[in-house]
């Protein structure tokens, strides 16, 4: 990653892929569109053209992890169809606004679609074909902030002390995507002091459908996580809780609000946009929380 002085755009000619496809995830689409909007702005600011395949829905991870393989495969096939159309000659990177969804497409899809085709009585050749299609799509998928850290130039971090934030690295991004630390490097380069809470590698308790079916344990885990996050607020002056996985963040936010805490919770894309606009202040971060469908 190179650092470049702030200008109109941060694009370096010829060095950044000119076009990407965005997968925003069902959660961002429905309950936190601000994150996806920020992601678009940030990419465009760096001269990256964004394409949003409008047929997209959900990666199907919830179903898969709950043991509903066939239901997941139905969604996975839909995902593959949506993202392979029109890209045959010019395969673009697919940026997912969630580490966990990215991991699902990358690690789960090929085997899942192969197995499900066989289960549905398709011939072996057809199953293999699905596997190949899934692999082709999987090979193009990246988590948004890691991709940005690697491929795009960043504006110069503003002078002055970096803004401390509590950073939650989701389990799947941490353990299933190689070099997930790149995402934190990106934030640091932008003047965001992303700090992990104590016992950072411990699950926040979200776990997809686990958060619905086992609310008690799920919440006990959230409370442990939030206690350590609150320590960062107290000791390091963290102004918000952020991360690249809305599943975890919404679960933690829901718990914070139930506990009457007003600690802002936002997706990293929203912070990056603030940094791009030179508006990275505690006040502005608090306002993100009140955003709501611009």
């Amino acid at each position, binding site marked *: 990653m190179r650092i470049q002085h702030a200008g109109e755009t941060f694009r370096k000619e010829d060095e950044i892929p000119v076009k990407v496809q965005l997968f*925003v995830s*069902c959660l*961002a*689409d*429905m*309950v*936190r*569109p601000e994150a996806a*909007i920020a992601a678009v702005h940030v990419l465009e600011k760096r001269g990256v053209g964004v394409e*949003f395949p*409008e*047929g*997209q*829905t*959900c990666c*199907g991870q*919830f*179903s898969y*992890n*709950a*043991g*509903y*393989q*066939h*239901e*997941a495969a*139905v*969604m996975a096939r*839909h995902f593959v169809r949506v993202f392979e159309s029109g890209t045959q000659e010019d395969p673009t990177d697919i940026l997912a606004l969630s580490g966990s969804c990215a991991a699902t497409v990358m690690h789960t899809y090929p085997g899942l679609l192969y197995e499900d085709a066989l289960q549905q009585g398709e011939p072996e050749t057809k199953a293999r074909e699905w596997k190949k299609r899934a692999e082709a799509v999987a090979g193009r998928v990246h988590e948004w902030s890691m991709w940005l850290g690697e491929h795009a130039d960043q504006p110069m971090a503003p002078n002055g002390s970096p803004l401390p934030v509590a950073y939650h690295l989701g*389990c799947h991004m941490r*353990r299933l995507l190689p070099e997930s630390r790149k995402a934190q490097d990106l934030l640091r380069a932008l003047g965001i002091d992303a700090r992990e809470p104590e*016992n950072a*590698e*411990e*699950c926040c*308790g979200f*776990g*997809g*459908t*686990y*958060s*619905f*079916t*086992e*609310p*008690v*344990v*799920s*919440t*006990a*885990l*959230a409370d*442990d996580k939030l206690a350590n996050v609150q320590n960062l607020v107290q000791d390091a002056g963290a102004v918000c809780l952020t991360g690249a996985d809305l599943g975890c963040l919404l*679960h933690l936010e*829901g*718990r914070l*609000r*139930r506990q009457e805490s007003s600690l802002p919770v936002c997706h990293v894309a929203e912070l990056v946009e603030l940094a791009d606009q030179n508006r990275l202040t505690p006040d502005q971060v608090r306002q993100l929380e009140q955003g*709501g*469908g611009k």
Partner: protein
Amino acid sequence: MAGQLPYDNRPWPERRDAALQNQTMRHTIGFVTRRFTLIKGEIYRTSPDLEASRKTAVGQKRQAIRDLPQLLEQFRNQVERRGAHTYLAAQAQDAVDIALNIARSHQAELVIKSKSMVTEEIELNQAFEKAGIPVRETDLGEYIIQLAKERPSHILAPAAHRNRHQVEELFQADASREKISPPQSDEIEDLTRYARSRLRQEFLRADMGVTGGNFLVAETGTLVLITNEGNADMVTSLPPVLVSIVGVEKIVRDWASLTEIIQQPAMSGIGRHLSSYTTMIQGPKSPGSVEGPREWHVILVDNGRMALRDTEFEDVLSCIRCGACLNACPVFREVGGHAYGSVYPGPIGIVETPLLTDFQVLPELPSALCTLCHACQEACPMDIALPDHIISLRHTIVKRHLNSSTVNWTLRTWARFWSTPGGYRRSISLARVMQRLSGKKRNAQGLFPGIFAGWGQTREIPQVAPKTFHEWWQEWKERAEEK
């Protein structure tokens, strides 16, 4: 053939709540598991040669499981040649019967035991007590829970759920029963001293010893036992009759394979190069030797293990019971071992319990006690695909219709709606209606369909945005086109 496992018949919510209310347990389990995880990571980082051994060991162990029948045969020949006796127990009950017969034929009056998970699995102590033969657990943690009539809460730290005061109470009661002097205080040092002198007498008096086993070496007919307390050394050295009860999967092919794997339990379990004591038994003692059993019996237990060979779950039989997956698991750290209701808790227990018993007991484990965070996968020295297995077991549960109808309904409807853009849009409109109806009220979960209701019990439900990203994008695109 499916095996038999004992289990706690309280329903899961009851086990869960009991665990979450036990602050002593949560505190100690949290402390112990985090510390072990930390030092385990550290020791592998600083011992690259042992990391290399680990990888070799995984391959060798997988092959040994594939060759299990031949290797077991070889092991039995080797130890029988040296005058030991071996048995193959198909089911838990068979193993118990064999052990009881041996005890009866020697008119055993006191049996001492070192720690063994497989004897928990077959409920050996209960059977012996019923037959009127007292069995004394000698691992400190096991001794404590034996007095408390409980099951282990951690495979390496069985009494991790009890604090010193609770242990002192147990020891006081024991001392007054035995008419011996009680521990001097509830200091851990004093409690340990009490256990030492109390158990020392029994070690010297016992006429039969029982051990488990960490490894069986087919080539040499060796049984390996690993402890930190030294109690397995006592059990193998002192009583005249020794019975070792070991799962068939403990086999390794040869001395070279043992060399690769022998340090892994201590490395992964307690973050040391070796535990304090590694004991190897090759046969009954030779005449004139001071220590060792005159008679040695080895009971090899199947109890559902063989049936896992040649299945996608075969790698489970590579487990060395190091406890690393328990230590790394966030749910285990939260609820401890008892909440699982099985003798095998933690990620490996979630996988093994339904598998060994063909879902006869505790089928809820894979869904109820795992968030799929993959910490166990990262921790397991034997590269057992624990999260994949858990997903696969959840899938089996779906196929066998073991889930509640609410869960089924939710997941099926969800997939139906979300596999087309139109259905997806409809579901969003529906969510908005629900949201309007519920207002901004707390605990509005009643209005939410299926399993989604669970969320609202403890967390605010996120609101569907006035404008989804899809909707924003369309406007934005139109505006861009106008320009």
